[in-house]
Structures are given as C-alpha cells and as structure tokens.
C-alpha cells in the first residue's frame, strides 16, 4: 500500500526543502492542446515536483483569459469530467509524481463529492483544490477528502482577515493555497508585494504547508515566491505556451523548456 495522499504531499515539500528550495507545481488544464495529447504535456514537464491538473470548467471565476479559454477549448474538444479523471490517473501512473486535482465546486457537486473523491483517490491523486470554495462551504469536501486521505487545500488571500485566517487553519486543510496577488490568474511582470506579506502572516499562525499561486509566471518570480513558501504554482504562463504552439509536439517542447528554466532558477537559489 502506497503512502497516503497527505503524507505524499508533505514528503514532496520536505524533499524540496532538503534541497533548500520550494517545490515546483505546474498547473495545466486537462485536455489541451487536445484531449489525446494532454498526457504528453504533463510528461514533458520532467523538472516538476508535482502537478496541478485542472479539470476544465466553462465559467471559472478565479481564472483570467488564458486559463478560461484553455478550459473552453478543452470542453469544446470533448473533455469531460470522466476523461479528466482518467487523465489524472495516467499522469499519476506514468510520471510517479504527486498529482493535485483542481476544479470548481459545481462539477464536483454534480458528480457527487464522495464519488469524485473516490475517483481521484483511485486514480492516485494526492490532493484537491476547489477554486470557488471558501471555508464556509468546505466542510463536506474536507470530510470527503479525509475519508479517502486526499489532501484538500483551502485558500488564503491578501484580503483574508486575521479572523478568517484563524478559521481557515482551524478547519485543518492538508495545505494552504496562498493567492499571491489581488486578482484572477494571469501573467504578471512582478511578484506582488502581497505575496510575501501573506506568507509571513500564514507562517505566524500555522505550520501547514503553503503554496503560492496566481500571477507567478517568470523564473525570477518563482524564486521570490519560493523563498517564502513551500511550493510554487505556475499556471497561465505555461498554459499560454500550449495554446500558442502550432502542434502538440511543439507545445510539449516549449513546456518542457519553460519548466526546466523555472526549476533551474529555483534550484540555483539554494543558499
């Protein structure tokens, strides 16, 4: 029997920490550039420590134009929840890396929370992120996750008050997803100052693993974010490369190179 989801999440962060860096977690929409080539995108990101696999949702409130259009493209090309779950399984099985599933509340509610958690656990996923689920609504998801030991994340944002932060930590998520900047996903030229402030506030009250995401796109930003967090999520910058590529082969190449560059920068920042 393999290690449980939450343990695998923790050991991923621990392994990176041992090398004096944060874990690199690329986000990629399931089903782009097309459903058949999607697995190859994940396999191309060899320098990643783990993956965030986005099950596409057509009305993603937390996503900017790049990830939103990637989701619509995947859905138009026939990507379904079941196909997304199958991809999760294949990514986990063929890369051996921790896979965290990211989606929105409604697809999971329609699928059934328990059935969804069962499916991703069976597929080998270690964690789950629901972008429009604040702690107020999270109880049945946290419970479902615990039942199958799939590590459920909760968000913290620059606007999260101390009182809310306390409530979020008290709900005992497997890890925290810190929203690095005020806004939806998308590429930014600089890491927002809010990112390190947020990380400090979180560190002051909990030992839960913290990943930072949203608006982190360049190697330099990843290094900065990695200096204050256990993990770094890069999404739009990678998704854009896939959307812009002429074919799947070129997409995989561009993606592999981009993730290599991110990882090298993060490794180089060893101190």
């Amino acid at each position, binding site marked *: 029997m393999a290690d449980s989801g939450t343990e695998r999440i923790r050991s991923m962060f621990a392994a990176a920490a041992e090398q004096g860096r944060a874990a690199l977690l690329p986000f990629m929409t399931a089903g782009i550039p097309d459903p058949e080539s999607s697995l190859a995108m994940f396999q191309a990101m060899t320098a990643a420590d783990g993956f965030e696999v986005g099950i596409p*949702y*057509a*009305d993603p*409130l*937390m996503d*900017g134009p790049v990830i*939103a*259009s990637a989701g*619509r493209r995947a*859905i138009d090309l026939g990507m*379904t*929840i079941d196909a997304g779950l199958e991809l999760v399984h294949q990514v986990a099985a063929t890369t051996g890396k921790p896979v965290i599933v990211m989606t*929105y*509340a*409604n*697809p*999971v*509610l*329609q*699928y059934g929370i328990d059935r969804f958690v069962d499916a991703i656990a069976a597929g080998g996923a270690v964690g789950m992120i629901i*972008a*429009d*689920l*604040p*702690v*107020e*609504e999270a109880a049945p998801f946290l419970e479902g996750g615990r039942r199958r030991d799939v590590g459920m994340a*909760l*968000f*913290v*944002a*620059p*606007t*999260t*008050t101390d009182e*809310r932060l306390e409530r*979020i930590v008290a709900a005992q998520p497997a890890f925290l997803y810190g*929203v690095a900047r*005020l*806004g*939806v996903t998308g590429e930014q030229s600089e890491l927002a100052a809010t990112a390190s402030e947020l990380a400090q506030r979180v560190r002051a009250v909990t030992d839960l693993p913290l990943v930072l995401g949203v608006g982190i796109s360049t190697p330099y930003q990843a290094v900065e974010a990695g200096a204050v967090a256990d993990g770094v999520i890069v999404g739009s910058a990678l998704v854009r490369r896939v959307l812009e590529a002429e074919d799947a082969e070129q997409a995989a190449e561009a993606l592999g190179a981009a993730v290599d560059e991110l990882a090298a920068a993060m490794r180089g920042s060893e101190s």
Partner: protein
Amino acid sequence: MTPDERGRFGEYGGRFAPETLLSALDELEAAFAEAWEDDAFRAELDALLATYVGRPTPVYHATRLSEQLGVDLWLKREDLAHTGAHKINNTVGQALLTRRMGKPRVIAETGAGQHGVATATASALLGLDCVVYMGAKDMERQALNVYRMELLGAEVVPVDVGAATLKEAVSEALRDWVASVDSTHYIIGSVVGPHPFPWMVREFQRVIGEEMRTQLKRPDVVVACVGGGSNSIGAFSAYIGDPDVRLVGVEAGGYGIATGKHGASLSAGSPGVLHGSYTYLLQDEGGQILEAHSVSAGLDYPGVGPEHAFLRDAGVVDYESVTDEQAIAALHLLSRTEGIIPALEPAHALAWVVDNADALRGKTIAMVLSGRGDKDVQEVAGRDG
C-alpha cells in the same frame, strides 16, 4: 424570510466564491445590516426614492384589457420609476451603501441594460466611478441602453466570450471584483450571487410589494416575471404567508421548454452552483452551465436567485413559463389596449395572464410591470419585419 448565518434559504444560497472576495462579503453583510437598522440611512434612501426615483409608483387598473380578458387586472407601474424599471430601487440603495463604505468605484453587470443604466444613474447621482460589463450580443440588441449608460458617464465594457450575454457579464464583473475589491463595490443587479446579495437586493426591492399592499385591496393572484428574480421577490415578499394570495413567477420559455432553448431554471433546471450561490440552474450532467435563451435580454440567464429555489421547493410560489412568441404578442396587446409599451421581461408575466385568462376569470390580478419597452422597440420591430 431572513437567510441563516451561512446565507442559506433552506439549502439554497451560500457563498461559493473565491476566498479573495470573502472579506468583502463579510464587510458588505455587516455594513448593510447596520445601515438597514439606521434611521438616517433609511431616511436618506426614502427621500431619494420619493423625490428622485418617483416613488411610490402608481398601481393602474387596466380597464380595457381587463374587459377583454375577463379578469380584473392591476398593473404595478415600475415602468414609471426613474430610468424606466424597478432596477433603480436597488441601485440607489447599493450606491448609498457604497458611499457609506467609503468605496469610490462601482462595477455592475447588465443584460437588458436596465440595471446598467440604473447603476450608471445612481453613480452619477452620488459621484461614483462606474464600469458596466455587458455581453457583446446584448450590446447589439440593447444599443439604446448602451448609449444611455455612456451619456451618464459610465464605461461600458463588452464581454465577448461564450454566449456573450448576461451570464458572461456577471462572471466578468466578479473577476474585476476579485482584483479591485479594496476600492470597489459590485452592485449586482438581481437577487443572485453570494450572500449577502440575494438578501440585500430583496430588501431594497421589497418596496414594490409594500406599496402594492397599501395601494390595492388584496388580490387573488400576484404575478411577475423572473429573470434573476428581483422584481418578483420584491412583490411576493409582501404576500408570502397569506394563503389567499396565489403567487406566480413567470420564467422565459424561449423557443419552448421542450427545445432546450429557454431561461426557465426553476421550471426545467436542477440545483447547482452558479455565480456564488447554490440554486436552480441550467446545466449539463457534468455540471457545465448551459446557455440560456430568451428574446428578452433581462431573462436570458441560466440561474435564478436562491430564495426562489427555496420558495419553489416549498411550494409557496408557482413558477410557470411562456415562450418568446407569447411574450411578444403580449407586448403588442398591452401597447394597443392600454397605451403602455412594456419591456419584454414583464410582457412574459402578462403573457401568462393571457394564456390563463379562462382559469383566472373574474379574479383580481396584480401584475408587476417591471419596466418600459423603449429599449425593446428595435428588437420587436426587427422581428415584425
């Protein structure tokens, strides 16, 4: 009813929104609760409703049409409110609240353009910066209202993704809010969205029903159109709990429920999450939201306010639907028999009355005429050729 502390009406409602917005929702809930208990705030709102909006709006007895249909039909004339629809009741309230919270900028979504115009108007009145998100398709079919918003000093931002109608406009406004929540209030246009919006907007629209109760002896039926559900809930609130008054909400039947091209979330949808609340909506098996269809941009929405979802399940309100064609016929009918051109949205409510005139024979019916039809003249003319 008041929603519970999680913002739920029964199981419906809640706050399915990105964490970034939650503190603002907490703040808004507290600010509204406090303002609503504050006599000074209420006095300022009431004064504006009286002198600026033109309230109370009259109730008019539609004599010729009553005779023709064999019913006793009364119209609550929200079309006579400033800017031509009930939407202004809510926007003046929320704009006052925005000023009270010290935020200099508001954003809004709009479908028919009525809410956008009402928001732009209240913003001009109180000196707030105003940005309105509007589906590109709606900008085409409601061109008059686009220009009105611009005259009022608002910036209208086209949203050209998906069906490019109301659902996409709400999503885009919410995305703006995620990035601007520090300085900006989102004036949502109906009883939808995360808590406290459905409750707050209903409180601002209650004035419709409260006035009706004093203006009209108890009707047998109260009927209103349901898009997001704000004019209807505003009217129903005053009658809920009275077993002698039948409440009827009329949704957009589009090309007909059987065609799948409609906006009837309560009649033909199922529960799920859209735009921050758990409610009835149009969706596929995988939980992807479906496109709605209605000739009326204000009813062209695949969701509905969570309180309506609760009232539906509880059997308190009957939700019916009429087709595009029936609504257009009703618009013509009211124009010719009473000299009132209604908006296509309330024309749906009238079409239900027309369709059920036999069963309603002799009954007193109070119908919310939620807006005037100027904005729809072009659309209707186009269809008549």
